[in-house]
């Protein structure tokens, strides 16, 4: 019976899969019986997208241990390229689910490419300098998409910066219209697609973290010099984590964008990056289930606080500060740990 004994990490991973599937089934059943409100129903896809964003950022921040403040940049990359692909293929691929899958793949591929290009300079830096460079890249991507014009006609794709110089042929159409973003998107994102993406993300991340590469990545996080001295190729593994994270964020961006009829570059600004970072930190660094729960709860929270109307973001801010204080202050922490069974000592390593 030894083979049935799973180690703690594996059990935890299976529990995560199980809970996600359970949540999906419950929401589907509730949805078909019509017992969830329409506002919640409308939020299901964004919640899935934010969950994927949170898991992918957790890979960078929690597993790789580098603070990234520009994760929304990858989301933007994925959103714009994915939607462009979906619109360009509208006639060629009539089946919506297939087009959706292609769009997600395109978004992920372009975001991975962006992640690779950004990773080359970024991963040479450390700590807060790395954080500021990711912030800078996020802002640069936002600026570029705000000024990018992409059109499609019989001769293929046309690109131009700053002003519309695409000179489309008869019957062509402008897909990305600079600061106006993309309009007239077919809403082909579904909750099922979101669920599948979340599951794929979990599988990818768990397999990466529990592999030889994942252990190398965590070794770099815990002590870069020690890892280097035992022969871990720091740049390679850092890049691996960073690009995977970017690709997943790109797919999340595609999913997110195709839930709305219009999408603009300003949606994916610094605040969005911060929002996702908040999910990751509140959920716990390196804890994927925590990220999922935090992303879902904090996306619903502002809606649930609607009864406070004007005060809801204020309440959100106060909740955020209080949670951080309660979970991180040694005095408060030991006070609360007294109520936890099995953890009676409440001792803290200083």
């Amino acid at each position: 019976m030894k083979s049935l004994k799973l180690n703690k990490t594996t059990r935890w991973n299976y529990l995560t899969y199980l809970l996600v599937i359970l949540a999906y089934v419950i929401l589907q059943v509730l949805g078909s019986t019509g017992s969830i409100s329409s506002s919640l129903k409308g939020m299901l896809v964004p919640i899935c997208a934010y969950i994927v964003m949170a898991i992918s950022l957790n890979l960078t921040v929690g597993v790789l241990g580098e603070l990234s403040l520009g994760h929304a940049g990858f989301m933007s990359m994925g959103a714009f390229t994915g939607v462009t692909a979906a619109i360009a293929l509208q006639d060629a691929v009539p089946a919506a689910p297939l087009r959706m899958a292609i769009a997600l793949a395109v978004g992920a591929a372009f975001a991975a490419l962006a992640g690779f290009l950004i990773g080359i300079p970024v991963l040479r830096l450390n700590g807060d300098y790395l954080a500021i460079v990711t912030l800078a890249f996020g802002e640069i991507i936002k600026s570029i998409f705000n000024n990018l014009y992409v059109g499609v006609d019989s001769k293929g794709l046309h690109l131009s910066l700053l002003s519309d110089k695409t000179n489309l042929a008869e019957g062509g159409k402008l897909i990305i219209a600079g600061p106006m973003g993309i309009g007239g998107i077919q809403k082909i994102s579904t909750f099922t697609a979101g669920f599948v993406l979340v599951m794929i993300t979990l599988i990818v991340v768990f397999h990466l973290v529990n592999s030889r590469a994942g252990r190398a990545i965590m070794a770099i996080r815990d002590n870069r010099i020690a890892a280097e001295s035992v022969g871990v190729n720091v740049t390679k593994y850092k890049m691996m984590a960073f690009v995977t994270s970017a690709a997943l964020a790109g797919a999340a961006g595609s999913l997110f964008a195709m839930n709305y009829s219009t999408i603009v570059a300003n949606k994916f600004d610094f605040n969005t990056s911060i929002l996702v970072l908040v999910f990751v930190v509140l959920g716990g660094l390196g804890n994927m289930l925590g990220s999922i729960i935090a992303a879902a709860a904090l996306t619903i929270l502002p809606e649930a606080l609607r009864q406070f109307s004007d005060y809801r973001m204020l309440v959100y801010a106060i909740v955020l500060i209080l949670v951080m204080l309660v979970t991180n202050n040694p005095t408060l922490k030991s006070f609360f740990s007294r109520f936890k069974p099995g953890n009676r000592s409440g001792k803290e390593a200083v």
Partner: protein
Amino acid sequence: MTFLNFLISGISLGSIYAIIALGYTMVYGIAKMLNFAHGDVIMVGAYICFYAVSRFNLPPLVGVILAMTVCTVLGMVVERLAYKPLRQAPSLAVLITAIGVSYFLQNTALLLWSSNPKVFPNFFTSGSGETAKTGVELFGGQLKISYVTLFTIIICIVIMLALTWFTGKTKMGKAMRACSEDKGAAQLMGINVDATISMTFAIGSGLAAVAGVLLCSAYPTLVPTTGSMPGIKAFTAAVFGGIGSIPGAFLGGLLLGVIEIFAKAYISTQLSDAVVFAVLIIVLLVKPAGLLGKQIREKV
């Protein structure tokens, strides 16, 4: 002549960034935290000054002093309530708390002062009524320098000199430098670390109020999110010059302002932010610790 005009407005914008960046860099140097709420303190300062002058008809100087007082107190209160309990916590937790404080300040401002843009009055005029002059003209009107620009640059230089004197010569300033080098050792030497950190926040927030007034005098639209973009830019400036270094913040701020205005003038208005950030990335690649930052060797 247009080049000179751009250069002067760049230096003026850069001076504002430098004053904000000083707050970032001092707090980072001593508390090792990125205080993302700093940009919102700027906004609070600007609002206080706006209401003091426009609604209560106080003289501008009183308005500025009032704004500085309120922001100083605000900075100390925020430090005491939100950051001090997290002194031992991981830096990410403190970062998220700072973001929470930033949301809190923005939304409080939204509730108190609404999202309607306020038009900030221009204090820096000579004469009165219709004939009021807003600037000086040189070379027969070819070179126009507004009083706001002139004052911003002068105030920035004064602040810079005062801070250099303060950190170099006074007891409190020396305590600050000691704390930023080694908190434990500073405490053993009898320095009150908590009071020193509190003082740093007070100075940083007071400077933020000045920056807020100057910023809104130059760009007179005031909304609850006024502070966030200049905040990010100033943070970038602080990193640019080498975070933790006071002359670095000054230099970084000035350079960032000049680059931004030149990018706007000669490359493209819309892409100026992208150019600024691209320059930052290139500088960090060549000098990974910023222009004047100290490269700290990792000990094994």
